[in-house]
């Protein structure tokens, strides 16, 4: 167990690339998601199957 990492202030997730670039270039910040948005979704490129494709052969 790494004790030092139990302090959230020291172990916040690293800044995103978008945030770094915005901060470093001084450009207006791109729209960004909340830092603690926990999202996980299966990738579905909508090309697995269509019921109609499957029906005909």
């Amino acid at each position: 167990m790494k004790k030092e990492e139990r302090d959230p202030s020291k172990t916040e997730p690293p800044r995103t690339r978008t945030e770094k670039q915005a901060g470093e270039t001084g450009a207006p910040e791109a729209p960004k998601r909340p830092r603690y948005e926990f999202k996980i979704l299966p990738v579905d490129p909508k090309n697995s199957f269509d019921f109609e494709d499957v029906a005909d052969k």
Partner: protein
Amino acid sequence: MKVALIFPPQGHFTQPYLSLPSLSAYLRQNGIDEVHQLDVNIEAYDWFLSEPRLRRSLERIDARRRLAELDAKEQLVFSDMERYQALSETALVGEEVAARIEEAKRVLRDAGEFYDYQRYLWAGRTMEHALRIFSAEYAPTKLTAHGFVMRQRIERSREILEAVDCEAENPFLEYFREHTLPRLEAIDPDLIGISLTFPSQAIPTLTLCKLIKQWKPGVHVTVGGGLLAYTAKKLAQRPELWDLIDSMVMLEGERPLLQLCEHVQGKRELADIANLVYRDEAGVVQTTPHLAPLDIGTLPTPDFDGLPLEKYFSPELVLPLAATRGCYWGKCVFCTLYTVIGPGYRGRSIEQTVGDMRALQDKYGVRNFYLAIEDLPPDMARAFPRAILDAGLDVNWWCDARLEHKVFDKEVCRDLAASGCKRIAYGYESASRRVLGRMCKGIDPDQSMELIKRTHEAGISVTLYAMIGFPTETRAEAQSTLDTILAHQDWIQEVSVRVFYLDERSEIFGRREEFDIVEIYPDPEADLQVYYDFKCSSGMSRAEARQVYLAFTRALRSHFPVFQNTNMLYHELKSHYFLYLVKHGSWEALRANVLEPTANGSAHAPGETPMRRGDLVELPLAFDRSVLDDVVSSIDSATIRPRYQSDLLEEEDRARFDGELAPLGRMESTLVYDRRTGEVQCLSPATADLLARCDGSRSLEEVVEIYPEEVRSDARRAIDAISRAGLLVTASART
């Protein structure tokens, strides 16, 4: 006399089709001793889904470089997003998929592995990844397990001919040159016959014809098959066609093909060959008279010799067998399928069909049969099972049937099951008595459901064909079909649903005013058009029918075990669901043993130590792939512009979306590919960080405590979600 018969891409890859074996058997029976059967479809899939070929794709696609170019953009327009999907998937999984594609094929072909459902799912997903990678090389061309489409519309002969020459987007030019022509050169046939059954075969067929004519201009090339019943006469009007082929055979092919052999041998004029379309020496297209349909009782058992039976992507052979040709009912006003092999309904005797099964079992050791018939006729439903049992045949089989409630009584259903019938696909179409009446289906919806119940209770898996958007059908009637199916889902295992198409050869087309069709929309450039968009003065509009269809399919995916997750993708492939039924004996056993216990992982309990699985592959992206997927999938090409059997967008629609849809701004995400399952997940940066912190050194509580108090409950739930996705193991599971 050497004949080469070819089944061209694209058809299913799980079992052979019946056309070549039927023709080969007939030619051999009639003294043509050298008949070569080439299933170029399975050969092509086998090559495209191979390590050397996928590595060629990876090199040509150069996904990482092109993805980096997109990742450097400030925003992505719609067409960028489509490319982004293909490039990010290829960059993430390409190397692994190429390295393990042979293993995936082995799983599908090996009984020991195929029935291990987790291995099967991995193999199926790997094949799908591979097909998308291969397709990306030829974008926007798309080759899937179910279809092949190019940007060119197959309703337009000009576009088909354009596709035939398109090196950049037609994958079959290179394939045929490298693989098919050398085989034909070795055979050096006098006659080449190509079976053109499905629309997805149209472009590959003419591509192959062109290459054959470049190689050997003098060889007679003939094309026959179901698609030509719809399009041959129109296609014949295109002069360029006759540079690619010499003749087209209409309807059933046995006798015309034999007569073509006699023509090539100098014994018969083309004008004396029945059911033929050809161009005479004066350049005039000729159509010869049709013969009376064959008595199929005189035909030999199909001969599968010479086909690469070991190459189909199934662990056991499932052979097709036709006990009948045509449809004994033949009254449904929307249907033309039963006409493509000739007029009239004909059957082999039950003794002959049982004899065919025995002969094929003795010759190939096959136990599994697909009766490739329009519907199981009443006399056969009653007597066939007993004949199988009396013959002592140990077989499994499935077929389509009409919902004949007076025929399929309890005893018949029981006998069917006892004889090895594992699955029946019924033409259900609608729950509405009014709509069924207008279709001339000749079935009673209430009695149908009783019959479905009897079939299910006998231990036979029930598939229903359903149709949305029949002219005059209201939204309420379509909804009642869905509601009825859902209410009886315990008795129904699969539903095959489609939107109604107006087929110009159907009864309803000729009587369309009676069905309130007030307008049809011919495409002036589509000289091969068979299906028409139309407007109806009552019932749902076409767009509304499409929306109901999409809602229908969403409901099926959420309610039916076979369609949940990615199950449908693999099971609906012609043989696989059937083979799983055979393996487990019944639907109930299959569901209990296989479909229900498929969860990847489960939530972690307090005190456990979650650990990121070591075999994950991650790819950080500058854009949120899950948002991007939502945008791309929000565009339903069929709603925008119906294209028969193609979901590709037209270029002008794509250009419009590039201008009209809000571009996607940068927002990082991480793709995670699970090598064990073949699945890909998209993680937000916080979730990716959380996954990284689950390194096996901290308990669940310690991981959560890393985060500010106000988000700890979110973090806890996220760990559960990551765990359910199968990306974590517990420390106790560490090995």
